């Protein structure tokens, strides 16, 4: 600001202030208030011995988003000398925020007079309020997580209000999003309000909540839009849009607060963990029956070489996603599916280069029944009987030999070396 503009501004401000003062009974200026409240030692003592600092840091205030205003804007009843001031009502200037807040879970509880629940100041600060875009602001992207976690990582509060386990919330720090914003300082990384909203936070079980199941794909798609597109075309995406509650959304496979990269062994979609993640639904008898899904997918996979090798940590073998895809999964009945009969040679051919039409002759998930795999069934039955019979005969022969020796009173060892 050049000196002239600065001068004009000051004059205008002074004039406005004078005008305001003239109409509003000439209240005290910021400087007036700071005569007392600028003293770092000023405090109020309560009968129970506690003290409350009444200090206002002028520098902080001047730099805040409200720094150009007066104390009276928020504290209209502050006339020297004064006692306890009335509550600050931010809604006077921020009616939209106030309205959203009053409908949020925080606002509803706050209305009941619960003091632990955050009001405006708990997140935004008081005299030092800054814009959300200001890197020093409490609600700046890279700072807001700590603001939320002051309460949501507090064991006492969590127990008192039956909030999710503190570990669930804290898991965010180690998640791919948490690390991206904390360690790498990436502004694109999702922070709490990106998913949960800011003023209008609601628990995930309420349909209006941004984190309700039905809203999750859209929510994640705000950033991961390419994947959302793929998901919408998949059988899971279509099911979800059709209102089928069991149809998986992003968080069912990836987790929520604890989302990690797929290369992290802890991730639910790490190669080794994929079969169990899919089985959570596909191994569920009720779901499989209700939607007529093929059964025994997990057990047949685990019986195969792929399943066993994966269990032992060989990550190059096929897991569910290697053949079925992941975001764009389609049922085998769909000609576009990677596991439709026509596409199987190509899909298997990713690893087995000579795979031709022969790959589609037979089942990949081999269920050993006469209807599905006669050959395997016959071999298995034959060997079961054969092995059983032989073992019985072995044991009989050996048993009779030993009993005979005992009866004849032969020495136990060293028969030939006596």
């Amino acid at each position: 600001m050049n000196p002239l503009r600065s001068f004009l501004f000051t004059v205008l401000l002074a004039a406005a202030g004078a005008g305001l003062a003239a109409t509003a009974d000439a209240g005290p200026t910021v400087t007036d208030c700071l005569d007392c409240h600028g003293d770092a030692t000023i405090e109020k003592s309560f009968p129970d011995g506690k003290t409350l600092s009444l200090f206002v840091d002028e520098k902080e205030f001047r730099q805040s988003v409200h720094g150009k205003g007066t104390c009276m804007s928020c504290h209209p009843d502050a006339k020297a000398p004064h006692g306890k001031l009335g509550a600050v009502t931010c809604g006077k200037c921020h009616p939209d925020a106030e309205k959203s807040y009053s409908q949020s879970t925080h606002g509803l509880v706050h209305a009941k007079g619960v003091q632990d629940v955050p009001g405006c100041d708990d997140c935004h600060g008081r005299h030092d309020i800054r814009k959300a875009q200001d890197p020093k602001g409490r609600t700046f992207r890279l700072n807001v997580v700590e603001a939320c976690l002051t309460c949501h990582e507090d064991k006492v509060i969590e127990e008192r209000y039956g909030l999710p386990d503190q570990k669930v919330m804290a898991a965010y720090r180690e998640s791919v999003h948490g690390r991206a914003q904390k360690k790498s300082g990436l502004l694109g990384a999702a922070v709490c309000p990106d998913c949960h909203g800011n003023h209008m936070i609601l628990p995930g079980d309420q349909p209006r909540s941004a984190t309700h199941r039905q809203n999750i794909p859209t929510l994640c798609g705000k950033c991961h839009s390419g994947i959302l597109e793929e998901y919408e075309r998949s059988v899971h995406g279509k099911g979800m849009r059709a209102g089928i509650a069991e149809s998986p959304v992003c968080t069912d496979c990836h987790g929520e607060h604890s989302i990690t990269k797929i290369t992290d062994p802890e991730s639910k979609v790490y190669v080794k963990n994929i079969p169990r993640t899919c089985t959570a639904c596909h191994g569920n008898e009720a779901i499989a029956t209700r939607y007529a899904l093929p059964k025994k997918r997990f057990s047949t996979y685990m019986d195969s070489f792929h399943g066993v090798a994966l269990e032992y940590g060989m990550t190059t073998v096929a897991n569910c996603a290697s053949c079925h895809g992941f975001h764009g999964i389609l049922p085998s009945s769909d000609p576009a599916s990677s596991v439709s009969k026509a596409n199987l040679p190509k899909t298997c051919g990713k690893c087995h280069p000579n795979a031709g039409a022969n790959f589609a002759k037979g089942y990949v998930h081999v269920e050993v029944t006469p209807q599905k795999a006669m050959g395997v069934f016959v071999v298995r039955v034959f060997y079961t009987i054969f092995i059983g019979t032989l073992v019985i005969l072995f044991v009989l022969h050996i048993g009779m030999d030993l009993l005979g020796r005992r009866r004849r009173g032969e020495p136990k060892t060293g028969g030939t070396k006596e």
Partner: protein
Amino acid sequence: MSVDEKKNSKRETLEQEIEAAVAEGTADLEPSEAEKIREKVRARVLEEVERERRIRTAAERRAEERRRREEKRREKHPEEGEMFQRFNRNFRFQHIVMFTSVILLIITGMPIKFPDFVLSRFLVNLWGGFHNSTIVHRIGAGMLIYFMVHHLFYTVLSRQGRRDFVLLIPTPKDARDLVQNIRHFLGKVPEKPRFGRFSYIEKFDYWAVYWGCVIMIGSGLFLWGESIALKYFPKYILDVAHEMHSDEAMLATLAIVIWHFYNVHFNPDRFPGTLMWWHGEISEHEMKEEHPLEYEEMMAKRSKQEAAEVTNR
């Protein structure tokens, strides 16, 4: 007389003979000349001794070693009698290759069939992970295939191999032996069946391995070269091969652990096992006990040979 004493006396006689010959040849020479010649002869003899020592072949040294061992054993267990060779070197080598490969195959294969078994993870990690374990399995497979080929050639090309193969073919006598053996176990008859070179127990072992090798190598090759196999066969044939490989492995393992291990290790006559697989020899006593027919045949052959030698003389 010990070996050393024998050697010494032999050397002494030889020295005396040479000494005498030299003395005779140098009788009419001057003492200094005689000494020179004597020196020459001595050097020549030493040279000859050294050469003799060198040309003694490995086979001779082994034979010597065996003789010495035999003597020691005979002193220790005179009741065992003479030692006969039961398995030749080639046969022992085949057995070693086979059991090494089978052990490798079992410890790397069974964890695939039983991933939940307590030792499975340990056995897989023994090789540094599953991938390495599959490589070891293929090494074992290579050894078993080699063994199979070697044995087929042995059966066809070697005289002993051909003879043994014929003797291993099951005969009605084996069934009778089995019945008699069981009656003997039960105390119905006092005598054990009299076995020839191979009892029905050993024949079973042999043919079990034969059958096992054919199935395991056959189905294993399908799985090893799954990509090539799928060029010519539909996937359900591979599924059958997989099932056969898995079930036959179980059968083979149980046959080895129950049948073979009892008969060669846990059998009270043998516990904890003999070294026959290593030296291939069997004592006269054991021969009479376990293979009386073969023993008699051998003795008959020997007396016939001796008789022939006598007539030839």
